[in-house]
């Protein structure tokens, strides 16, 4: 475990990561494990995160070393697409039993690797560590090394057992595994001045293919995509690219940054969601490649494609704009892509009434704020009832969110569109943006909503659950309005820091009592923001609101 904790420390020190940059040295050492709250946590573990990041590598056998839960409950559930091998969709697991737990699972792991190589002959086997074998001390690094030597094939240990932290950490640990064992181990047949890496793109629903034809046309070669529709060898020789684009907010920033450091590959953070974002990204790719020695006419070709594609996309979207006038969207996403989706929706003429920023980093939030203006209504922890009320109050006509929150919208008989990993449609690039707009239109104007909202013959609309939910919410609001003391209590009881369970009132008191002006100060006095650090932005806002007015000068 010592090498694993060293890797985790290294990830926490990632200078490119906004969250970590906000923390003090001592807190970084503590790591992200503190942020998980028993009984109040949702979301995947570090193993899940590692698997999500690497599983789109299509020709690799992904072997999960652990009990049946880790693979048996979750395999083949990702929407990534492959243009070639489907081996990545085969579920491999050691499915360790009680005997393995007692005597160790290394032998079973080694035999499993052997069976996979004999039966499936993949270019590489990725071995994922999970909690139970990590606890009993199975040394997967050693087993992988032995298997590599014996079978003459790359066998890559991915050390990211679930209990070391959340999904985000797992994304980065997966990146570390690639950096340590894969990238730079092979050479491409040839290189060109137009070789590009795309990092953090998973080709969900095949959306990479909405952009790749444009790159092909411009003459840019995707040397390696990490990891969507990727092949092992492409990742192994990705260190020969001239430039890189990092697509998914922060998931694999360590890969992009370390490849810049080690191999001199400059990268930028871009998005293919939304028309302008796509154009900007294409320009930036061309600019970086030209900087690295590609002929400058690359930019002319890029601009020509951008001009043509933008014109076509705008023309296609224009006919929806009148239909979208005055329509409001409630956007709830897991976070990583929220800022790019915001831009896309606004391009279509939709108005945003809120966006959840649970998992976003500080930078993401700033971007959302910038895009949405100062009035952005940031929804941090909406309860289902509040969410329903918001939809019901016609402050939103449609909800866009991830698979798991859809049921609230659907049960509230409100149009809903899936924009997270499990979705069926691809929304990237110019064509994807037009597709997204078409889907929103389809959802908004589907007559089914009018049907399903009709009361049942025996139903009294004044006593149905919708009215009850609204009434309950209103009663609560009224009770608070009538009782200022209680209202203040509720206001002060708002949880600001989830990790350390620190309430607003405690923070306000500390600020007043000690004249605090910085997040660090608040942290010292209240422990708030002492966990994952995500609430630093909320504390910043509180500090702003409470900024001391100049003390009155005592009159003589």
């Amino acid at each position: 475990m010592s090498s694993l904790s060293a890797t985790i420390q290294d990830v926490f020190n990632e200078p490119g990561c906004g969250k970590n940059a906000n923390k003090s040295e001592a807190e970084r050492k503590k790591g992200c494990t503190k942020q998980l709250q028993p009984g109040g946590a949702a979301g995947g573990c570090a193993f899940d995160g590692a698997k999500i990041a690497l599983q789109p590598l299509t020709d690799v056998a992904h072997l999960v070393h652990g009990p049946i839960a880790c693979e048996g409950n979750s395999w083949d559930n990702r929407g990534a697409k492959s243009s070639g091998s489907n081996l990545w969709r085969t579920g491999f697991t050691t499915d360790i039993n009680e005997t393995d737990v007692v005597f160790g699972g290394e032998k079973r792991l080694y035999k499993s690797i052997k069976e996979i190589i004999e039966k499936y002959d993949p270019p590489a086997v990725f071995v994922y560590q999970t909690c139970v074998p990590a606890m009993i001390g199975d040394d997967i690094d050693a087993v992988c090394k032995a298997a590599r030597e014996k079978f003459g094939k790359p066998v890559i240990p991915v050390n990211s057992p679930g209990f070391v932290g959340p999904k985000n950490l797992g994304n980065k640990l997966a990146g570390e595994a690639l950096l340590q064992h894969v990238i730079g181990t092979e050479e491409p047949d040839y290189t060109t001045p137009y070789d590009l890496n795309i990092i953090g793109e998973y080709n969900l629903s095949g959306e990479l293919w909405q952009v790749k034809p444009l790159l092909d046309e411009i003459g840019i070669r995707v040397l390696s995509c990490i990891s969507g529709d990727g092949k092992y060898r492409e990742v192994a020789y990705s260190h020969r690219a001239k430039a890189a684009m990092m697509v998914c907010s922060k998931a694999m920033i360590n890969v992009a940054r370390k490849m810049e450091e080690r191999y001199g590959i400059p990268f930028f953070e871009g998005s293919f969601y939304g028309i302008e974002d796509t154009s900007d990204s294409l320009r930036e790719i061309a600019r970086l490649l030209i900087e690295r020695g590609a002929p400058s006419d690359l930019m002319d070709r890029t601009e020509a494609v951008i001009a043509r594609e933008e014109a076509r996309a705008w023309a296609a979207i224009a006919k929806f704009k009148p239909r979208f006038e005055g329509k409001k969207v409630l956007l709830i996403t897991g976070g990583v892509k929220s800022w790019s989706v915001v831009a896309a929706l606004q391009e279509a003429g939709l108005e945003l009434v809120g966006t959840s920023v649970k998992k976003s980093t500080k930078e993401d939030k700033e971007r959302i704020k910038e895009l949405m203006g100062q009035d952005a209504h940031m929804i941090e922890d909406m309860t289902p009832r509040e969410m329903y009320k918001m939809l019901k109050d016609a402050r939103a006509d449609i909800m866009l969110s991830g698979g798991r929150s859809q049921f609230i919208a659907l049960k509230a008989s409100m149009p809903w569109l899936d924009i997270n990993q499990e979705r069926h449609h691809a929304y990237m690039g110019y064509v994807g943006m037009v597709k997204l707009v078409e889907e929103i239109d389809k959802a908004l104007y589907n007559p089914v909503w009018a049907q399903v909202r009709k009361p049942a013959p025996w139903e009294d609309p004044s006593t149905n659950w919708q009215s009850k939910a609204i009434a309950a919410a209103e009663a609560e609001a009224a009770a608070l309005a009538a009782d200022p003391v209680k209202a203040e209590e509720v206001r002060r009881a708002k949880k600001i820091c989830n990790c350390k369970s620190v309430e607003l009132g405690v923070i306000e008191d500390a600020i007043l009592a000690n004249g605090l002006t910085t997040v660090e100060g608040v942290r010292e006095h209240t422990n708030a923001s002492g966990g994952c650090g995500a609430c630093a932005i909320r504390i910043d806002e509180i500090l702003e609101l409470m900024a001391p007015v100049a003390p009155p000068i005592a009159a003589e």
Partner: protein
Amino acid sequence: MATVTVGKKACSVNPLKMSQPIGGALAFMGLRGAMPLLHGSQGCTSFGLVLFTRHFKEAIPMQTTAMSEVATVLGGYENVEQAILNIYKRAKPEIIGICSTGVTETKGDDVDGYIRQIRAKHSDVANLPIVYVSTPDFKDAFQDGWGKTVAKIVEALVEAPKNTSRRDATRVNVLPGSHLTPGDLDELRTIIEDFGLEPTFLPDLSGSLDGHIPDDFTPTTIGGVGVEEVAAMGQAGWTIAIGEQMRLAAEAMKDKTGIPYRLFERLCGLEPNDAFIAFLSEISGRPAPMKYRRQRGQLVDAMLDGHFHIGGRKVAIGAEPDLLHDVGGLLTEMGAHILVAVTTTQSPILERIATDDVLIGDLEDLENLARERGCDLLVTHSHGRQGAARLKIPFFRIGIPMFDRLGGGHQLTVGYRGGRDLIFDISNLLMADHEENHEPTPESWRGGVESLHTASH
């Protein structure tokens, strides 16, 4: 009849099996106002949550003790304590159901001890029903987790009657196995009520995961059987258990309350339902309602119509023991041959399946054996889709998870009507396959007698 063998491979490929903690969690979801809590790292819960969400297409209540690396080493008391307090505060549940996982079983957390300490320390939760089940991931399978959990609920929540003579003969406890869908439970409820009996289902997924529109938003389960109704199950005259996996729970009920039970190994097909209806007639003292006499006729007719398509089929079936026995039984009785049977865990029922051997294995085994033995119908859960595509044979989905088709929660196998519909669905699939892939051509029989056993049927 069948020999049961355990696969010899080190590596499980394309798992058929799911873990027992989530089987336990699903059982808790059949209780009203419940919050299932997995004592493990947060992925243990999140994978289960996604799986059930994709299957039922419903919001799923499930929480985690979010064990970190350090906590697993030091023991999870604090995590269990915090989780219970947080859930109590946020979700106001009527019951919290805790299942252990591989992570916490490896360390050997004494969760029952923790719960006692937590109750003693926090008066808020001193009387909150909390049921704990030991369900390590590295042992057994989904249906075992379900069975153990129901048995634990019975032990913990059912009240022994003070006076056995005051039993209510019209009340019947129903302990359904995890292979029954919410739709199945609805069907059983109707049948039992039609005999003038009053059933209590434990667990009752028909109330909680049947896709109905809830009356209010709660983070816990909506619907399901209430804790006080479970307590009152001790007053019933009979217990009906469905599936061998429920024997443990039925025995627990009998031990605690003295209520006799009748275990129905299957409720799919003609004979099992004849036995079921006869039993209901006997305990209720009422003749079978006309409705079921007609439904029986419809099932018989469906069997006659369907046997042309199902008869002689070479079936490869992969399912948990009780579901395998149940649906496999109907297919066998329709003249199909089960040439390949793969399952997840040991069960006494396996020996009675009408096939030569039952393998405790995975979907790779199912696929390879189906190919080897020339099967022409694949029956398993949605994860069979890749294998079916490679085998190029018709694929009928049964069981959990069913994430790539709608209506998994309403698929009916019980009752005369369930059998009838199942026969229609499978026959229609086979007819469509015949039209698409096996229409005769001028070349079909060119090879003479030999050609009968090659390409087409």
